[in-house]
Every structure is written in C-alpha cells, then in structure tokens.
C-alpha cells in the first residue's frame, strides 16, 4: 500500500548549518502519528520543509511525496492547492495565526472560497457547520465576532475549524495545546480525536509532552538533533523504550502516582547544530556510549516488524532496561 505521505532523506540546512539530517517518515491514511523531541530537534522544521513554508535561504533536500506526488520543488500553484487543501496545519499560538482586524466569518470564508469554491449563502452555511463541529456555542452570532473576543481555547477551536475548511487528508498539529490550561487542553485533544475519527483524517501531532502524544497517537517517532532515533507503536514505546534517549525522556518525567523517586535526568544539553560530530548526536550524553558511537551516525534499523531504532547499542540498552525492571 502506498502511504499517504512519504518522507525520505529530508534534510534542511540554514546558512550551511544542518538542522534536519535525513528524516524518513511515512504516514498512512487515517493514522495518528506523534512526533516528540525537545526544542531544536527538528519536529516542526520537518513539516515546514515538507510544505515549502521555510524561508528562501533554507536549503531543503530529499523527497516528500503526497499520494506519490513529489512536493519538494513543486510549482507554487500546485502547492497552493495542497497547503490547506490536502494538508492543513495548526500552530501553538492560535491568536497570532488569526488576523485581529477581520471577523471570524471573513477568515473562515476565505479558506472556504479558496479550497472549496463555495459562494454566497453556501459559504455561510458551511462556516456555521464548521463552528458547530468544533463546539463553538452560539455559532451564528459568533461568526461576526473578532478573534480577541474569544478565549485561548476557543481561538484554537476556530483554528481547527479553519484547518478543516479544505477537507484535508492530513492535519499537522504543531503543539496545539501547549499554550492552553490543563482542563482546556483536555477539551481540545478530545475535539481533535473526534474530528479525526469522523472525517477519516490522518493527523501528525507534534509535541514536547510525552503524555499528550502517548494518549492521542497510534505511532510515535522520537526526534533528537535533526534525526528520528526511535519509531514504534505508542503503547510499546512507552512500555519498552529502546533508544537510550527515549528511555531518558521517559525517566525524566516525574510520575503522578506511586512512590516518588529521584528523576533520572539526562546529563548535559542538546548539541549545537553548528558543531555536530560525525557520530551519534546523543553519544556525549549517553550512559551506554561506546567507542564506535563516535564514528558514524547510526541509521534507523528495524528491531521488530513495526519498530525501528537508530542505535548501535540497542541490544545493550534493552538489556539494561530489562535488568532494572527485574530488580
């Protein structure tokens, strides 16, 4: 089966500094994929590059295919059909993504006219339907309101409505709930999974929050310093992480119940992209690093039918984890 989106060897460099160093990723129809990693790991850049949204001076290489059609280097009029039409994106800060001087109706209608070719009464009816779909109460009246008249959670709902306007096949949600309070975050995540089910849409959820990704995605890819280091079904990744970085991330998360333990912090900091070694980017922080780790960057290799890991010490790492579990 041809995947809906297939990314191969995607690399991005800004002024000669590589920030994305060969990402391979496939997204199936209707699938929910989570991308986790710390700031600067390349989670957002992957999708901005795929959609041609990076500034001109960014050097993008590799391949991004949607339904088998190449997107990198595609002409602007073709990309205009895809962005917002086939692939929609929502961002962390919804307030700055809306125009403050236009009503919600105007902004929703723009998306509908562009991607659905709707006119007049049909636009209004569809805008109402979308606002109802995302759970905005009193949709008819709220259409003529301006963005500042809504709370943060409501603005994110409107952003989701706009993203859905083009009936996309894929929704890229980039930290959609990071700016929101806990109880509102729960509402938005529930909304996202219900619209995804109803519309049979695939979703990529980009987040630094392991919990958010674990609960809302079928499959998770962990990114570190511009590469994917582990990819697995989400329940397996969290029960049995193999890459030392994935283990470190999960160990660094304070538990909400059970006995309190000292957090297993990952020492050091994320490497500077301008001064990256040839070897594994995680090796300087890794407890299991051995001599060969510094020589060449490990490639993603399968360890099960649906799991891949980029670590030459994966076996040792797995044993170490099982050893601790047995204690």
């Amino acid at each position: 089966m041809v995947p809906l989106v297939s990314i191969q060897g995607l690399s991005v460099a800004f002024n000669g500094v590589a920030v994305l160093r060969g990402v391979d990723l496939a997204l199936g129809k209707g699938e929910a994929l989570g991308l986790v990693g710390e700031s600067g790991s390349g989670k957002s850049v992957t999708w901005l590059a795929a959609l041609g949204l990076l500034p001109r001076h960014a050097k993008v290489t590799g391949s991004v295919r949607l339904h088998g059609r190449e997107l990198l280097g595609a002409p602007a009029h073709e990309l205009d059909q895809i962005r917002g039409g086939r692939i929609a994106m929502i961002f962390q800060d919804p307030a700055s993504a809306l125009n403050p001087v236009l009503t919600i109706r105007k902004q929703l209608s723009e998306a509908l006219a562009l991607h659905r070719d709707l006119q007049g009464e049909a636009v209004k009816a569809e805008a109402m339907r979308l606002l109802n779909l995302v759970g905005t109460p009193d949709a008819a009246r709220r259409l003529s309101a301006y963005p500042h008249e809504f709370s943060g959670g409501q603005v994110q709902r409107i952003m989701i409505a706009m993203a859905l306007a083009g009936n996309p096949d894929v929704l890229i949600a980039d930290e959609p709930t990071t700016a929101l309070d806990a109880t509102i975050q729960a509402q938005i995540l529930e909304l996202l999974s219900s619209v995804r089910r109803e519309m049979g849409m695939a979703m990529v959820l980009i987040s630094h929050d392991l919990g958010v990704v674990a609960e809302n995605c079928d499959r998770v890819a962990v990114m570190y310093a511009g590469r994917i280091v582990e990819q697995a079904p989400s329940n397996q990744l969290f029960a049995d992480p193999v890459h030392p970085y994935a283990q470190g991330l999960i160990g660094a998360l304070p538990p909400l119940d059970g006995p309190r333990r000292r957090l297993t912090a990952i020492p050091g900091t994320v490497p500077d992209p301008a001064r990256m070694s040839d070897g594994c980017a995680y090796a300087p922080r890794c407890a299991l690093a051995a001599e060969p780790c510094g020589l060449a960057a490990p490639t993603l290799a399968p360890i099960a039918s649906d799991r891949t890991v980029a670590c030459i010490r994966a076996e040792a790492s797995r044993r170490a984890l099982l050893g601790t579990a047995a204690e």
Partner: protein
Amino acid sequence: MSAPLVEVSSISRSYSMRSGMFGRAAAVHAVDGVSLGIRKGETLGLVGESGSGKSTTGRIVLGLEPPDLGDVRFDGQPMAAVGTKAWRAQRARMQMIFQDPLGALDRRLPVATQIREPLDIHGLGTPAEREDRVGELLRAVELTPAHGARYPGALSGGQRQRIVLARALATKPDFLVCDEPVSALDVSIQAQVVNLLADLQAQLGLTLLFISHDLRVVRQISNVVAVMYLGRIVEIGSADDLFAHPEHPYTRALVSASPAPGRRSAGRIVLTGDPPNPAARPQGCAFHPRCPRAIARCASEVPTLSSVGGDRQVACHLVTGAETRDAA
C-alpha cells in the same frame, strides 16, 4: 512538628480592571481569603490554571505587593513596611525565582557580576569574600567559574535558570518563592533543575513555595500541595495523597486531565465550559458552572475550606469527611 516559617492568614487582593476603553471599572479578585502555613525546610506546592491567583499569592507572600486584607508573618514577625531597614533585612532572607531566566537576567552583564549583586546591595562580606562566595555559588548549582564570565545569551536555558538560582541563594535565604521555575525548560533539562533544587533544599534547609501548573513537577518537589481556583484554595493536603485521591471535583478533573504515557484516555473527566474569568466570578462556588456534580446549593453558597479527615481540607459542599474518606 516544627513551627511554620511562613504564615499567611486570609489574604485578599483585588485589582480594578476596565473592559474596553469606555467600559466600567470592575474589581477583579485575584486572591480571596487565602490562608497557608509553610513549615521550615518543607515545600508547599501551589497549583492552578492561569488566573487562579497563584502568582499573586507568591508576590504577596514575598512582600512585593501588599494584601488588601489579611497578613503575612515571616518567622513569627509581621512583614515590615516596604523600604524600611527591617524590610531590607527580611528581604535578604527570602528570594524569588521566575519562569523566564532570560527576562530575569541583564543581558549586558557577565552572569558572575549578577550573582554578586545581592551581596553588594546587602553589604555582605568583604570584596574578596564576595568573589569567593560567587565561585562557591556557581559550584553549588553545578556550573564552573568559566560559566560566570559569560553573558546570559551565551548560556543555555537550563544554565540560565541555574544562574538565577545561584543569585537567589547568594544572601543565604531561608525561603524561596519559585514561580514556574522549570516550565520553560525541556523535559530532560527540567529534571536536572528539579533534582538540583531538591538537593539544595536538603543541604541548606530551604523552605520553598513552589508555584506551577504542572502537577507532576509539583508532586515531585512538594510536601504539601494546595490547589487554587479563581483566587481561592479549593483543596489542600499532602502531596502524595492529594494526587492519588483527589476529592474536590476540580482537583479530580485536573489530575484526570494530566496525560500519562502508557495510559489511554479511559474515563477522562473533560470539563465543559471556558477557563474561569477572574473579572466575572460566578456566585456561590466559583467552580459550579463547570462542575459535573453541582447541585442547587453550589450556585448560592460559597463552600468553606474544611477538614475531611487526615490533613486534607476541601472546599466543596459535596465532599464531607464521612462520605469519601473511609477508604483511605
């Protein structure tokens, strides 16, 4: 049981806010009748969503802002008037750490100079002693003197927060107010800073007021946790017990909304309605419009914080000691 170092008795603070340019000024009750006690060497965690009044509470406790009503006592003494000599002496014993270390540091000064500043202001030690103390503080936060010569821009987020921590510790304070100290940091760095804070607390016998919206981090570092909603404490109790057995419907929703790896959202409590607006606080229990269990009484009568057994106190008409605490 040791005596509380910090005692807050029913403090209230309101601001006046205008809605729009010509709107009528309305009082916003940021904090409304909050009482807390923090014992020496312990940590009180304060959790709540934006607008719950947790930061305002922190500022009042530190004396950065006067309360409209109520009072704060530090080590048995009332807070001295701002600007007096007694106030300065008291302020050297209490410090604050903010969320954004880059905003809290001066970008044009080497960080060692900034760590030294409180020593100069409070006139502690000779110049040579101050230099030594800066080195000692840098080591205490696991940095080197080489880091001290750098400017804030040349340090990572985690290192900057360590510098802020070193500066806060310069005057050997007894009490630290930490307002979202790790919220801006990545998970792996957050764990480093949380561990460091716990170590320093144990070494120096610090008392902490730890303000955060992150339940996990709060539980990790606190002995006692208080949950705030629209300016009031709705539940308070020991950190382990509170999150394991939340009683107040709001605490339950908060705990349930905290996603956990390895757990699919089964039976999640999703609150309906918008986040609370402090300028339009509902009558009765402020939580009742969003509460899944609200009854008629909740809309008219404000519940008071009362003991439900053990060290737990809850402000809810529907939670009483006999009803729910027998299992614990």
